[in-house]
């Protein structure tokens, strides 16, 4: 699971959960998969992402110092930051770990790189 994908996941489908975001991420095993840097792609992706979720991901992945507290207004001209975001969001691959619902504590395991977001019938 890439950390860009993490940014979209919620536990809102659980009965009674109001927001279900951000999920509490724990990483037991991560890998880095290098990929071609495409600044335009990152720039276009950013408005769809939640900055607090990006910050959380950076913290858990141990890349805290790379990501500023607020999204700078001129990010398009800041190639250095775009590269760091590319690395964090598209190159870090979470292989083992878990996502936890902030409201109910329900755990969604990440196994072999696959987050399991399936719910039982009695949870929805």
């Amino acid at each position, binding site marked *: 699971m*890439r950390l*860009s994908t993490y940014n*979209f996941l*919620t536990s809102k*489908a659980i009965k009674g959960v109001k927001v279900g975001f951000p999920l509490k991420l724990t990483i037991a095993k991560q890998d880095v998969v290098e990929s071609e840097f495409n600044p335009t792609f990152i720039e276009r992706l950013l408005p769809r992402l939640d900055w607090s979720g990006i910050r959380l991901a950076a913290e858990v992945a141990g890349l805290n110092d790379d990501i500023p507290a607020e999204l700078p207004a001129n990010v398009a001209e800041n190639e250095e930051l775009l590269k760091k975001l590319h690395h964090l969001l598209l190159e870090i691959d979470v292989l083992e770990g878990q996502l936890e619902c902030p409201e109910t504590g329900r755990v969604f395991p990440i196994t*072999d*790189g*696959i*987050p399991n977001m399936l*719910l039982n019938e009695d949870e929805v």
Partner: protein
Amino acid sequence: MACIKLKKLEEYLHGVDTFEKPKIKLEQYITPPHIASCVLYNIQTLYGDIEGKYVGDLGCGSGMLSIGSFLLGAGMTTGFEIDDDALNIFQTNVTDMELPGIDCVLCDVLTLSNNEKWENAFDTIVTNPPFGTKNNSGIDMLFVQTGVNLASRAVYSFHKSSTRDYIHKKVKDWNVKGNVVAELKYNIDTSYSFHKSKSVDINVDFWRFDVSEKNL
């Protein structure tokens, strides 16, 4: 323009491993590599909907459409699938082919619209949905509806040609423009050995849905 030759793309897609024990209830059969490569190549060359785009694949199975999209230059591709056996093969395919920008989520596609985070997350959605022949009639259009919700540019999908008029009418309600990009004929039963004796080719339409003015 495409960043890879059609022939090369098809060659790669022939290397995508398929379902090991296809589950009939989930309508698990792959998009044949020849067809997958042709339609994806056309999505890119005719409409520019893949290169540099964020592409989502609903019911991604072992990854044929996700992998094809990534080879055509997608910035990133995410697949959604309800069956973890299929996703394990998906992951093996991605690792074996050493493709960097592809991941997947184990979930029910029909619940994705409940999470507004996914709304407009993607530029383009591709899907080869279950056709709804296993006591789940209408599921193909629920996949399209989910796709319309998740995409900001276009949704591409396969449907039985016999449903063409119905689909035209249905998507109008969402203010989505649909057109049939290709008329195909293929055998979807080949993966179920006990069907072999009576399996026949069926007529399938490949659709493009323009969602830029959607109103769901």
